[in-house]
């Protein structure tokens, strides 16, 4: 049976290599380019933005951007209401971040927010929270 598992592992590795070499998938450790809807930390910091933290509650409690709102994925309607309330008080750029460069949660939430707040300027942070510690 060990030989069978080895063959399965080998075939899976070959498939993975094909995805990486053919460009079907990005390298997991690759530095992503600035994509549409993304903003660099340096650019966001010079603006008075509304930070939205899309990581877990424990990660948020351990440290977050100044005055960042916690985006609770278990209660997206409540989270969006909080963001809307903050934005209506003083309309400005909204920047959402998740854990690091490879995470896609912030992009997904940014897309949802753009539908709910079409007048707002909304970005996801390039590099996510890990950009803060670099």
């Amino acid at each position, binding site marked *: 049976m060990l030989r069978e598992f080895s063959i399965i592992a080998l075939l899976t590795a070959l498939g993975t290599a094909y995805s990486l070499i053919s460009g079907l998938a990005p390298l997991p450790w690759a530095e992503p380019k600035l994509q549409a809807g993304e903003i660099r930390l340096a650019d966001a910091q010079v603006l008075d933005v509304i930070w939205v933290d899309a990581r877990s509650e424990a990660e948020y409690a351990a440290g977050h951007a100044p005055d960042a709102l916690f985006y609770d994925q278990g209660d997206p309607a409540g989270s969006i209401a909080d963001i809307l309330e903050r934005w209506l008080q003083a309309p400005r750029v909204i920047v959402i971040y998740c854990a690091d460069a*490879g995470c896609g949660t912030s992009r997904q939430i940014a897309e949802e927010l753009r539908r709910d707040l079409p007048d707002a300027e909304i970005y996801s942070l390039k590099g996510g929270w890990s950009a803060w510690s670099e």
Partner: protein
Amino acid sequence: MVRVDPTSFFGLIARLVLAGVFLQAGLPKVQDPVAFAVAIENYRIISGSWAMAGAIVLPWLEIVIGIGLLTPWLRRASACTMIGLLGVFIALHLLSWARGLDIDCGCFGESAGSPDYHWLILRNLALLITSIFVLRIALRNPRAPFRSE
């Protein structure tokens, strides 16, 4: 005369169903690993590069064991791997349900919106039981699905 053993016959049907499900699950995710990485992250267990690595490897593993289940000399390990994967999927769905996460399961690559956890868990349980059935047959008679008399 070739007599078809009912157990082997149902075993063949079970293997075809499982292989079809896993191929259908793996192929779209190979085409769009970034979307699958987002689905993995939404479970809030791993994120970033780990989620992307999982999104690249897991669909290929699903495809390989799907084909492996139809290949006599890979059947046992494929069934074992399938049982392990389905166990992990069920645990993840139970965990997400308990945490109240309203996420797309990412099972077949498409965005299905809010999950119906009852259905997801029941479906995976049925697939798990089918995989165990296939493994039992494979262990008993690893290479000959039909018996000649």
